[in-house]
């Protein structure tokens, strides 16, 4: 049940795939995985949430850090393949239009 993280690079864009629930137990691990990428600051980041059935405010907070990084960088921070439950949480937080959210990984790669 611990979260699994995978990273893959393509055309100078790194895609992080998360598998598992993105809750208070998983957030520190995911944060530790993302932060070095922001420090590096030389590739856009796509976070693939296809296999994330649940996200809480700690998960959102972790992703907001990516958003803030992208605002202070010329790199993109994009989310893709949100499950219905995760999408609903973003909607309630009114963050669906604040983040760059894409239905498919292919779309997220366009211009990233």
């Amino acid at each position, binding site marked *: 049940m611990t979260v699994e993280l995978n990273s893959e690079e393509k055309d100078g864009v790194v895609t992080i795939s998360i598998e598992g629930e993105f*809750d208070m137990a998983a957030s520190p691990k995911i944060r530790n995985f993302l932060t070095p990428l922001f420090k590096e600051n030389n590739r856009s980041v796509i976070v693939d949430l296809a296999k994330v059935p649940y996200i809480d405010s*700690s998960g959102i907070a972790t992703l907001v850090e990516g958003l803030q990084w992208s605002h202070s960088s010329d790199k993109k921070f994009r989310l893709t393949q949100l499950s219905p439950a995760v999408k609903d949480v973003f909607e309630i937080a009114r963050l669906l239009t604040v983040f760059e959210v894409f239905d498919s990984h292919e779309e997220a790669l366009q211009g990233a």
Partner: protein
Amino acid sequence: MAEPIKITIPSDPRYLCVNRRALQQILTLAELPEELTSQLALCVDEACSNVIKYGYEGETNHSIEISYAIDNDVFEVKIRDYGKQCDTSKFQPRCLDDVKPGGLGTFFIHKIMDSVSYCTKREKGTLLTMTKNLKTDMVNQKEEE
């Protein structure tokens, strides 16, 4: 539900999922729609996370006692901790216009639940009671469609 269902977990983020799993099953048995099930699980989870973060200041060796009841289509959850008491009138859901990490947990709770009340009139810790009318929501969802 004749008797409430109770679950006690250690104040360790690791075990939040055990509580979520039990709650999801309770709500599935009550034939709640998936969306509402997830939303209620989120609220309970956020409240427990706050108990760990603020009530127990991150210490993982304490207990969180949670109790669930559904009566007359009203879902009631009580969350009892034995940690630090705070002036609960002061924690406000944050304004969403300012996008920053943090402050979302209580926003979700207030947005989703019908009533949220903290009681610190105990020697130690806090009792948080939250309710949600399950019928109203389904009616509202229908009206919105």
